[in-house]
């Protein structure tokens, strides 16, 4: 039997089918990994509370099903997951799905803006530097980019807070909005944006040099290709060459890496979110690890896997849009 779906759907379906084993692998791996760690969520809870007595601890363990064998726990978890039930977070006393949904927005906003800024500015500067390859300008751009890359993210973030919040008083120290500010409408948007400026800047600055370097190398490579020579022979000027011939071709290898970056940035945001008190997934993931909040961590990783699959799919689409050699038909 052959199904006649639009090609894009077939493709999406194929990607999904490919993603399933990866996700299953991740879930099982994460589960077992966290089970290997000493202590469980009850230990973490009790540690947080500042202690509890033995009966209380034992009762919590039974309550949370932590007294069952690992395989049973895993099996029960997977069965629930298949029904899209992420379970209950004993740490947050709330269903995992609810919390994930709360956090997703902030994280997506932070990631999307930082990645787009890092990407666009990085690509622009990279192209700019490549056109002046090995000149002083190039050296300065590349080295400054690298300095940001070389700065530990917490260092950069703290310095920004000192400068912009404490010294100059321009920007709020952290959080996602002014608490008890009760802003609505446009004011709310401005307020959130003000809170996101520093964390976004910190993340963008760090990842900027990554794109800068990639783009620089890519432009240098493309600029050497035959068709650029052809365009020159046609009488095209340098700007035209850059805009119409080099950029688009040079962007392609950079774009393939965009999808991959997502989970890296999510990891990188652990520290930044912690410093700026942003209620995002990065911080949540870190907390889940040290709290042994199994369901939560599994939920995050699952979500992350889905996002990575989706982002990769989107970059594929983007790639296909930009690369005429790949046909949609």
């Amino acid at each position, binding site marked *: 039997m052959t199904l006649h779906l639009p090609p894009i759907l077939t493709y999406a379906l194929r990607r999904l089918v490919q993603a399933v084993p990866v996700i299953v692998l991740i879930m099982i791996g994460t589960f077992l990994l966290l089970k290997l760690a*000493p202590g469980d969520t009850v230990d973490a809870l009790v540690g947080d509370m500042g202690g509890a007595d033995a009966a209380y601890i034992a009762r919590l363990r039974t309550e949370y099903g932590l007294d069952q064998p690992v395989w049973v726990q895993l099996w029960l978890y997977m069965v629930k997951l298949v029904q899209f039930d992420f379970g209950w977070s004993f740490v947050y006393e709330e269903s995992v799905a609810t919390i994930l949904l709360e956090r997703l927005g902030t994280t997506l906003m932070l990631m999307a803006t930082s990645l787009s800024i890092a990407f666009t500015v990085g690509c622009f500067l990279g192209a700019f530097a490549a056109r002046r390859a*090995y000149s002083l300008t190039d050296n300065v751009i590349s080295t400054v980019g690298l300095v940001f890359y070389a700065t530990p993210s917490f260092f950069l973030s703290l310095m920004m807070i000192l400068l912009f919040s404490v010294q100059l008083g321009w920007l709020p120290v952290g959080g996602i909005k002014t608490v008890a500010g009760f802003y609505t409408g446009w004011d709310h948007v401005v307020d959130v944006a003000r809170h996101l400026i520093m964390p976004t800047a910190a993340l963008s600055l760090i990842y900027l040099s990554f794109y800068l370097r990639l783009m620089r*190398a890519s432009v240098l*490579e493309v600029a050497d290709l035959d068709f650029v020579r052809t365009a020159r022979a046609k009488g095209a000027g340098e700007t035209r060459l850059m805009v119409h011939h080099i950029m688009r071709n040079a962007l392609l290898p950079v774009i393939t890496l965009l999808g991959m970056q997502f*989970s*890296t940035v999510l990891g990188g945001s652990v520290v930044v979110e912690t410093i700026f008190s942003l209620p995002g997934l990065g911080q949540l993931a870190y907390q889940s690890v040290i709290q042994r909040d199994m369901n939560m*961590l599994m939920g995050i990783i699952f979500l992350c*896997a889905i996002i990575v699959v989706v982002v990769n799919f989107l970059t594929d689409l983007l790639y296909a849009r930009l690369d005429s050699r790949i046909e949609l038909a």
Partner: protein
Amino acid sequence: MTLLTTELPKPEPHRAVLLWRRFARNRAALLGLVIFVVVLIMAATAGLIEPTDPLRRAGVPLTKPFVDWATPLGTDQLGRDILASLFYGARISLLVGVLATLLSIGIGVVIGAVSGYFGGWIDDVLMRTTEAFQTIPNFVLLLALVAILGSSIEYITVAIAIVSWTAPARMVRAEFMSLRGREFVDAARNLGVSNTAIIFREILPNALPPIVVYASVIMALSILLESALAFLGLGDPNHASWGNMIGQGRAVLRSDWYCAAIPGTAIILTVLSFSLLGEGLNDALNPRQKK
């Protein structure tokens, strides 16, 4: 004039000489090399000109730099000599960097090579595994590993390697996929050379340049990861590492900024030097981007 070119062209200078020439053309890379050498010297001489134990109380806590010549760069909260810690920290940072890099590149090379060379279902399985590893945010995985293994410097190094091998694996795979179709590989197969020998003796040496360049990236990342762990209080306090120094210096950042700023600068410079070195190596090893 004869057309029969039996006489050999004049021999080229040694590869190393050529590499050096290409490398030295990049001024930023030279700067990187200089910094790197300084860090190397610091690591090598730790303990020679400095007191033997950087964790020992060496003076009044929080002495400012350039005040007491017994502790030229001052002391931290527990009275430990910052200069000594800086030297020992160079050793630890380099050690973490180098070992984690070797380990992750090792894993990456084996997986990437097998995957890229054999292709087919082996490739599928290995690449799915790699994807799985890549999907988990690497820093979160690192935290989980450190939670499991504990924070000793050996385990931190291993954990960093475990979260860093995917990128080199993918790169090696790509290299292998393009190299395995090259005629010299066919030539070796045609001679009856075994797969293992083809992978490691024929293809790998040719796939090395980008790996070497990438090694500098991992090296830089390892140091940053170690410092981020220390920032979250998960460093190994049994060793003076730059990460630990910043991690603790951060608490006194506002009053005694030098405690964090000195190791912070050391990290920035070292990571920068790796990156610049990497750029230089890239220029040197990848003659396509000539000039």
